[in-house]
């Protein structure tokens, strides 16, 4: 907080968090007012309780010759005052606590919705440079910190502040010299709290690091537990784990001890304060060294004294909560401020005739020309790349002038080593990344003139990794077309040869999948990915290593099943396995971002070049 820029950031972030309360500003003000009310009723209550004893003692001291009835009346009168004060306090406390819970959840709902919305529109490149863990932290830890701060601290920091001020004021009213003792101890405590918080942070970071280390070992060993068993390697692996676990114990012990030092310190400082104040108070009452003091006043003074440190302690606690929250909130806002995927295209895909099975009749592109005229162009699926250059990182070109065409009813294939740029070509077509130069068109429309959603609806992609959701197999297949009937899904599964394994699963099509489908083998997952593509209707089908984990015989059966489907479509295939692509109309061999050979399989074999070498097994694809 020493850094003024940092402090400015904190207040900016705090302001932005509070801006989420705007629709409920009136309620928030009410919360703060009632919070202050809670504290005030508490302070005045304690103050008047002291007066009650004074009034009773006044009777015993026979000041002004009070008769018993009057004394009793005064007592009842005092009690009624205190009861109404306290009743107001209880009401305020319940009110602001409950209302704050309500408001917090509303604001958090809003924030989470915005986070998810943002996540869905960030460019893919964002996810390449940020780990899943970092993004998940926004939804978990950072949101949790917000819950803590808003729920517990936002209103209660006003309670503590009021209590703080009120207690000091009351102490001063009772007796000025005695109060200086309390002030001294409060200062000692505050200094300790701030210094300790700083040290704590250091130890906490150490603990988190040790925890991350032990987690990394656990992760590796659990993922590799089958290998460990097969190699009788349990002991050696355990030793490595034990070391990390011991380091964790040390760091975590230190960190916990550090945070706990506050408690005994706080307890003892209050105790010390109280003892010294008590002795000083007694002598003051008897000798009058500190000026006027009544017995009731001494009692109130001691009660205030005993609780004097409490609001300061709470205040720092709430303050820390709020500061901790701003760190998370800052990350959340930085995420929300990220630039969304560029989507400036105007061309839209529209439905022409719902009932026509031929997609060129069913869908069309609506193009608004510059002169305002509207053109409906049938959806066909002609893809053209012209001299496309692309780099993920400036200066490192991954694609160096790619030119090709793909037409409906034709199959084009890409082969090449890992890193040759095969998958990149497809990512560019789906506009996951913007190209550096050149042009990509779909049905002669630049893909950058097409609305993102329309463009992607016109493509069907199957990648090597099939992502599955925690729902039934049937719903997982249905994902790509929400309105498909069970019959349609079954037909699609039959075509892609997934039907037999699905039927053999415990509950058939209704079998639940968990943890990204971890209960399925790689091959089975790919079959589901292909089934999705079969169910999906678009005229351009992209298969990126979509059958890499399926054996060649099954692959051939699938290809036969999909032949019908592929007949009218533009098909683009990427494969390591040459048998997958041998019937392609054009095969392109990619090497370091350029197409070095192209033609049908026979033509390429006749060339006796790179493809020939791959085919005859002379070189291995990395």
């Amino acid at each position: 907080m020493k850094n003024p820029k940092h402090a400015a950031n904190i207040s900016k972030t705090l302001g932005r968090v509070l801006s989420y309360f705007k629709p409920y500003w009136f309620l928030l003000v009410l919360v703060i007012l009632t919070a202050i009310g809670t504290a005030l009723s508490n302070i005045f209550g304690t103050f008047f309780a002291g007066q009650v004893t004074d009034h009773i003692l006044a009777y015993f001291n026979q000041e002004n010759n009070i008769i018993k009835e009057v004394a009793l009346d005064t007592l009842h009168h005092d009690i009624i005052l205190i009861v109404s004060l306290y009743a107001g306090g209880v009401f305020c406390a319940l009110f602001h606590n409950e209302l704050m819970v309500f408001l917090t959840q509303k604001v958090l709902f809003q924030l989470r919705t915005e986070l998810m919305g943002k996540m869905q529109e960030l460019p893919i490149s964002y996810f390449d440079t940020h780990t899943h863990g970092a993004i998940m932290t926004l939804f978990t830890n950072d949101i949790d910190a917000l819950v803590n701060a808003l729920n517990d601290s936002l209103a209660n920091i006003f309670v503590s502040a009021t209590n703080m001020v009120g207690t000091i004021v009351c102490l001063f009213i009772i007796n000025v010299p005695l109060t200086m003792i309390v002030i001294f101890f409060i200062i000692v405590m505050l200094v300790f709290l701030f210094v300790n918080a700083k040290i704590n942070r250091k130890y906490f970071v150490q603990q988190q690091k040790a925890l991350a280390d032990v987690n990394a070992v656990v992760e590796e060993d659990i993922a590799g537990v089958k290998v460990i068993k097969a190699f009788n390697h349990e002991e050696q692996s355990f030793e490595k784990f034990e070391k990390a676990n011991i380091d964790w114990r040390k760091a975590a012990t230190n960190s916990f001890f550090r945070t706990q030092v506050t408690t005994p310190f706080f307890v003892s400082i209050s105790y010390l304060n109280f003892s010294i104040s008590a002795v000083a108070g007694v002598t003051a009452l008897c000798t009058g060294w500190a000026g006027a003091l009544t017995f009731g006043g001494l009692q109130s003074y001691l009660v205030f004294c005993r609780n004097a440190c409490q609001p300061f302690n709470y205040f720092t606690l709430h303050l820390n909560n709020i500061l901790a929250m701003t760190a998370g909130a800052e990350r959340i806002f930085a995420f929300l401020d990220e630039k969304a995927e560029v989507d400036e295209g105007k061309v839209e895909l529209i439905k022409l005739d719902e009932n026509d099975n031929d997609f060129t009749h069913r869908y069309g592109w609506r193009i608004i020309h510059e002169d305002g005229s509207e053109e409906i162009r049938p959806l066909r699926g002609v893809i053209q790349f012209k001299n496309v250059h692309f780099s993920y990182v400036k200066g490192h070109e991954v694609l160096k002038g790619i030119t090709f065409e793909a037409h409906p009813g034709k199959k084009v294939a890409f082969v090449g080593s890992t890193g040759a740029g095969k998958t990149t070509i497809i990512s560019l077509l789906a506009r996951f990344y913007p190209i550096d130069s050149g042009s990509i068109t779909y049905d002669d429309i630049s893909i950058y003139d097409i609305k993102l959603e329309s463009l992607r609806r016109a493509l069907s992609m199957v990648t090597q990794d099939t992502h599955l959701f925690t729902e039934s197999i049937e719903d997982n297949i249905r994902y790509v077309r929400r309105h498909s009937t069970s019959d349609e899904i079954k037909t699609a599964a039959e075509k892609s040869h997934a039907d037999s394994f699905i039927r053999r699963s415990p509950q058939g099509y209704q079998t639940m999948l968990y943890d990204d489908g971890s209960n399925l083998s790689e091959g089975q997952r790919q079959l589901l990915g292909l089934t999705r593509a079969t169910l999906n209707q678009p005229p351009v089908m992209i298969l990126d290593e979509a059958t890499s984990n399926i054996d060649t015989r099954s692959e051939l059966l699938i290809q036969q099943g999909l032949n019908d489907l592929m007949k009218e479509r533009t098909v683009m295939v990427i494969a390591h396995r040459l048998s997958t692509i041998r019937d392609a109309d054009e095969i392109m061999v990619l090497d370091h971002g350029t197409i070095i050979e192209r033609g049908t399989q026979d033509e390429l074999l006749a060339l006796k070049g790179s493809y020939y070498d791959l085919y005859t097994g002379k070189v291995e694809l990395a």
Partner: protein
Amino acid sequence: MKQKRFSLWPYIRPYKAKFFIACICIVVENALEISLPFLMDILLTKGMVHQNDGSYTYDAGFVFMMGGIMIGFAISAFFLGLASAKFTAKAGRGMGFELRKQEYQKIQNFSFKNLDHFRLNSLMTRMTNDVQIISDTFCSVLRPLLRAPFQLVFAITFAFIISSQLSIVFAIVVPTLAILLILIVMLTRPQFYKLQASLDRINRTTNESLTAMKLIRANAKRDYEIEKFTTVNSEVKSIGQKALALLATNMGIMNMMTYVCIVGILLIGGRYALRYDDANMANHIASFLSYTNQTLASLIMLSNVFMMFTRSSASLARVKEVFESENEIKDNKDSTLEVENGSVEFKDVSFKYNENAEEYVLKDINFTIPSGHFVGILGETGSSKSTLIYLMERFYDIKEGEILIANHDIKEYSLHELREQISISFQAPRLFTGTVRENLLWGNPDATQEEIETACKIACCYDFIVNSLDHGFDTMISQGGNNVSGGQRQRLCIARALLKKPKILILDDSFSALDRITEGQLKKNLKNYLPEMTKIVISQKVSTIADADNIIVLDNGHISNIGNSEFLKEHDHIYQDIYKIQTEGLAQ
């Protein structure tokens, strides 16, 4: 403690001295703290004398002595507090250490069936986050848990000693508050379980959406994803509002009961003092007021402790599940029987993963492999090829049939001996963080450099280790082995398997990323240099196993045919199909 209910005590036991010291420090510190209002009461009633003229005089010696005692108590409380924090941390973190360690060992002893049941991600959570949460809870709960009842009892006892009349207020308020707090805890608990479940759901939805981002984009499913998320998000909101609102009443009720206490003491004490002209009662009121906070605060502490238990109970339940899983594979640990040769025999073996499943994964498997043979296993995706070899290593136990190695049932060997003599290179080649050499030494920790190099030469990885890796055998392998290519990883895993000098070598689709020349060389090396070792090779490629002594063709868990390539080309339709698809191109 009979192990039915899950107890944390076995994990605290190694730290029991520290644990008890922590407990004692907490209790004594607490006693010192509690005596404070009591000392104050003595100070006010005995230290001062109320003169008839309304002024006060005091006994200076007595007052300063009492003050000295109080200061002494404060300082002792501080050091006791420090000690209790230190020992609580040691015991609590030690418990976490022990828990994680034993869980690790338990998981290392899991059978593959156990592993399949838990799934890897969930096992990781159980060993990382869950242990941390349990240890955190233990550390933060110990102090309030010990203090609260102690404080309550002491405060009430002292209160009675001071004045039985005023204690009536406690007698009424304390049980009422206790009942209210119990009610709130009981009402809140199920709400918090629900909240936790819905938080898990929202995290899962987010995580899945994040993992499947490309799929979502490619299918333009943004709106659907947001809609899905909004459903769980609203659920979290409404359950969160309910649960936290209930919890927030805690504070209100606490406040209210404290006030009731104060008012009660003032009213009863005041009236009593005035009615019966009891001046002492007026002095007691002050001491009583300070007990009020303490007594009621201890109750609220207890209710907080229960809430903390609730929050960590999900973690505890998950860890408990791990400890309660039985490994159904019984190790014949003391067996000294040694595997004498590499012959393998399957007799009427049938197997299914789950006893309730209808269909068998493997059915009526019968074959024999003489020691030293090269046998191929061929079959489609999902034809249970890998399962077949897992049975040989007893990763799963069969219920029907018999598997013999070197003419002994595999159950007669110790697991250690069995796994020492059978070496496997898995389908997904997995290396570990560490140098290339460290990874290779997994096969045999005592291997000499010469042995390592020989194994690497046979596995065709010597050249690239020496020539293309930056630091040769000392090159660091990153997590998951991502800094070497797939083909290189496969060959390193084969070399690791060879270093064991096994009687039986199993290669599960281990050539898939190799070029044909390297593959041919590797197979030739195995044949020439290790003739007496039985070699079992699983593959989807006919060319890889065409020269095997025997090929087992699997079809949906049955053996379709066994024979050499020539025989199968004539008689087995699956083999014919695969052969045709894979060689067609070459023939043209």
